[in-house]
């Protein structure tokens, strides 16, 4: 079976300069793939290309055997943007109801996802008055409504406490066990250990990719954080 997401020679220009340089990448079915890299390395841009909202300068992005962004994929790929994209002047429940209708999800599913992201009891609160972490979880909930086959999540755990982060990562793995493919970005290196596969981006290039164990073996470290820092430093040419 071919990869769930397959990127070949992807080049993207933003603001007059090339920010992704000939990216090659395969994301396997039913796994949690971590997209890591320093701020500005191109994680969001790559994810936008995968969901088909990024104008690209060259190369191909194939998702579930169709070109990224084709209409058939819009039902099967869920995208959580880095900044929460929900309506601040609607309540939690109203936001979810709207996205549920748009995505063709049922009313009981709305109650279900509220539980999944731990927003029970806040259904009637305006999204604009939620705390940062609650806001992010509401944005995540809207993506889970129709149980897409591929989930593209841009820094879903930013601003969450350690317990919530652990729960969410546990939940991501449950989804993957159920057959969902997840591409999750983070610039918190200590989350790398929670992924099945890793891709490290650096200045618009894939620096390394592989499983956490494989990368530890390659770099001869036990600590992924240290491994990545040394890889990035080496690529920068600093000692």
């Amino acid at each position, binding site marked *: 079976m071919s990869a769930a997401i397959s990127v070949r020679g992807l080049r993207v220009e*933003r603001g007059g300069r090339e920010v992704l340089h000939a990216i090659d990448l395969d994301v396997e079915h039913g796994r949690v793939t971590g997209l890591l890299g320093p701020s500005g390395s191109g994680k969001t841009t790559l994810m936008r290309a995968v969901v088909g909202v990024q104008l690209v300068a060259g190369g191909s992005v194939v998702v579930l055997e169709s070109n990224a962004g084709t209409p058939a994929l819009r039902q099967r790929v869920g995208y959580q943007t880095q900044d929460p*994209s929900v309506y601040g002047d609607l309540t939690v429940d109203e936001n979810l109801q709207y996205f549920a209708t*748009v995505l063709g999800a049922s009313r009981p599913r709305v109650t279900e996802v509220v539980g999944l992201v731990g927003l029970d009891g806040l259904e009637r609160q305006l999204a604009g008055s939620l705390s940062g972490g609650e806001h992010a979880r509401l944005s995540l909930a809207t993506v889970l409504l129709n149980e897409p086959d591929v989930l593209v999540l841009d820094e879903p755990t930013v601003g969450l406490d350690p317990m919530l982060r652990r729960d969410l990562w546990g939940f991501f793995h449950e989804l993957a066990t159920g057959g969902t493919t997840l591409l999750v970005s983070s610039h918190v290196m200590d989350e790398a250990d929670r992924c099945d596969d890793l891709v490290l981006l650096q200045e618009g290039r894939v620096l390394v990719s592989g499983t956490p164990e494989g990368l530890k073996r390659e770099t001869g470290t036990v600590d992924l954080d240290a491994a990545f820092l040394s890889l990035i430093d080496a690529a920068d040419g600093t000692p």
Partner: protein
Amino acid sequence: MSPRRTRATALRVLRQLRHDPRTIVLLLAVPCVLQVLVRALFADSPSVFQSLGVPLLGLFPFVAMFIVTSITMLRERTSGTLERLLTTPLARGDLLVGYALAFALVAAAQATLVSALSFGLLGLESGHRPLSVIALAIANAVLGMALGLFASAFARTEFQAVQFMPAFVLPQILLCGLIVSRDEMAEWLRVISAVLPLTYAYDALARLASSDELTARFWADVAIVVGVTVVALVLGAATLRRRTP
């Protein structure tokens, strides 16, 4: 497009408005207050009020919906919800028609209220066609909405969007024939006014206000208003790009 998604979008826009009661009150009350002011201003010359009153009924919704829509759409662009929606099965038509339905409903409430006040209490004559006046006011509102939607594509910030109101709307009000009759305008102004949609909206309202029979010219006006609305909506849809730099 799907009727279910279009309806959900209209409902969502109305719900957003419901959480902003002050805007609702402003939308409904401001035109009433302005109409009362115009009436008081021309207390000694009722004929002037007669000729201004009906066109104004149609212009209020046009201006209000232009502003409300361009700001709402700009917010949708800058908050990331538009990008998110464009990754879902929602068609661009669902979004635009959803907006049009929601704001047409608001415009209907607005136009009905100002009309009731004007015809009932302020003594404005409707030319025996109050319902047609309201219908035309709603058509104007949807025209304003469609132009606002299109204009919002060229605004990066809310400041710019607000400035589009004097830029897009004021020249149309100045040149539509309300302030100076088109026959008395300099030739070049008349040419400009002929390509501005509000000119035809004004002309249709003015013809309704007179109690004469409705001529073919009236129906041509209406057709132009509807046609420009459709063109603006199609152009607006073209500005909603799924892929952006």
